């Protein structure tokens, strides 16, 4: 495009009068600059690798924390599903009245299963589990009450809903008191919530660090190419043309850094797998350590690319416009 001389344009302008062809040339130029910036990184392997490794490790920590939270959540959701309410029946209530209570409780929409454990059965279980079998033989009468074990439906297994159900069940006249072993669950949830908040805070700090590292690397690269930028401006390069390779560099840093973070996390999980299997074996659980899924890997890469782009964009906007060809 010539602003001064009518009819004068680059050979390219003459060839491509249609908008589609112009767009095609712009896209080709941008892609060519992308490949070129990758080549530039390849030409300075040590400096590029150092930056990429720092980025990769900076991204590894929040990713690892995310995986930890994900696995803890999986474990704790298993615990929550096992929530059970124990209802202790009054001493004065007859066995027939207790059976009626069990039938009545089974009709509650919030309850999935009801199990009745009579006094004698409870004592037998206690004897076998507690190890005080012989001592209990000296008691004149059975001190244990009858217990009704209630499992809430899935919708009522959260700590709050189970507590509400407990309060409701305690209103039954046959019930002395109820017990929901929920405190540890609440503590676990609180800890989990704290862990999540910590992960978000640490993650944000580390991601900010990634932006700053990329921004600073691009700034140094801009300073290193000051002379080149001046010459480019003198021969008619637009700001977009000058900015694009630096933006590409930020994007490449993001992509490679993200992949390094993914590989590090997967290696860490592979390393921990046998130790976790041993712990799981002790608890007779079928828990399997979970890594990053395909969509999570994609999210990690997109986030890394976005951080790389933002870091380089900030540097490019701040420093390139200040570089002007000052001397002919």
């Amino acid at each position, binding site marked *: *495009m*010539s*602003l*001064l*001389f009518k009819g*004068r344009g*680059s*050979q*390219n*302008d003459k*060839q491509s009068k249609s908008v589609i062809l112009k767009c095609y*040339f*712009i896209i*080709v*130029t941008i892609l060519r600059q992308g490949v070129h910036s990758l080549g530039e990184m390849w030409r300075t392997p040590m400096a590029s690798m150092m930056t990429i490794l720092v980025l990769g490790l900076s991204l590894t920590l929040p990713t690892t924390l995310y995986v930890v939270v994900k696995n803890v959540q999986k474990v704790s959701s298993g615990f929550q599903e096992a929530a059970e309410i124990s209802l202790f029946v009054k001493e004065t209530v007859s066995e027939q009245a207790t059976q009626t209570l069990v039938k009545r409780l089974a009709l509650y929409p919030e309850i999935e299963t009801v199990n009745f454990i009579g006094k004698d059965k409870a004592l037998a279980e206690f004897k076998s589990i507690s190890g005080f079998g012989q001592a209990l033989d000296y008691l004149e009468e059975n001190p244990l009450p009858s217990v009704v074990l209630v499992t809430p439906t899935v919708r009522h297994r959260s700590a709050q809903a189970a507590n509400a159900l407990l309060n409701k069940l305690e209103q039954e006249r046959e019930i002395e008191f109820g017990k929901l072993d929920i405190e540890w669950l609440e503590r676990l949830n609180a800890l989990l919530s704290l862990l999540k908040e910590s992960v978000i805070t640490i993650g944000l700090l580390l991601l900010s660090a990634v932006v700053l590292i990329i921004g600073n690397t691009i700034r140094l690269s801009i300073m290193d190419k000051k*002379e*080149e930028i*001046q*010459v*480019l*401006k*003198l*021969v*008619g*390069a*637009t*700001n977009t*043309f000058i900015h694009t390779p630096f933006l590409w560099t930020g994007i490449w840093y993001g992509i490679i850094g993200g992949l390094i973070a993914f590989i590090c996390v997967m290696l860490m999980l592979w390393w921990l797998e046998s130790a976790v299997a041993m712990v799981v074996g002790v608890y007779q659980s079928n828990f399997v350590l979970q890594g990053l899924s395909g969509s999570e890997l994609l999210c990690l890469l997109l986030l890394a690319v976005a951080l790389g782009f933002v870091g380089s964009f900030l540097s490019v906007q701040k420093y390139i416009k200040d570089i*002007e*060809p*000052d*001397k*002919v």
Partner: protein
Amino acid sequence: MIKFEQVSKTYPGGHRALEKVSFELTKGELAFLTGHSGAGKSTLLKLISLMERPSAGRVAINGVDLNQIKNSQVPYIRRDIGIIFQNHRLLERYNVFDNVALPLVIEGTHHKHMTKRVHAALDKVGLLDKVKCQPSTLSGGEQQRVGIARAIVNSPPLLLADEPTGNLDPELSMEILKLFEDFNRHGTSVMIATHDLGLIARMKYRSLTLDHGRLIQDPLLGSSLPGDTL
């Protein structure tokens, strides 16, 4: 082609580089711009290439008032002007081909066409055999010719040269100036800033003389401008 009307330029800090300079360079003309160091030659060229804006007056190229040009349009203006520097300003990371191809890459020229143009430009300056060399392996004269090839590769209608022979011996200087003459014969307007009066005398072209920012001599306006002395 180039028209200066009462152009003044004062830099921040108060240094007055140009004062009420008026002249016109017609299309297809070759002219020298001369004067002592600090006379304002470089500032004048900077105003033409939009590296600086005038503090007062009007600069126009081909009738287009450069004062009215927006910053976003500056790159497109510069594509119409080939600029040659005393210190060549070649990019050391790139070879001769890539340096010369730079203006064409910026314009988005197709690779095949670009190769043709670069080879033609290098052939013109006699460096076709150095196409793959790095600038640092070339002599001063060769580097200057690469700079000239870069300036002419996209056939700009206007060439500006700031002390293009400053670091060269007389023989090489004449060779470079003959190249400018050649481009000029093909219709390119050329303005050469130099303080080599011997060279100017040999070439017999119009010579504008600046002294402390004032145009004190322009053959088209008489040997000495009113109020000034040589």
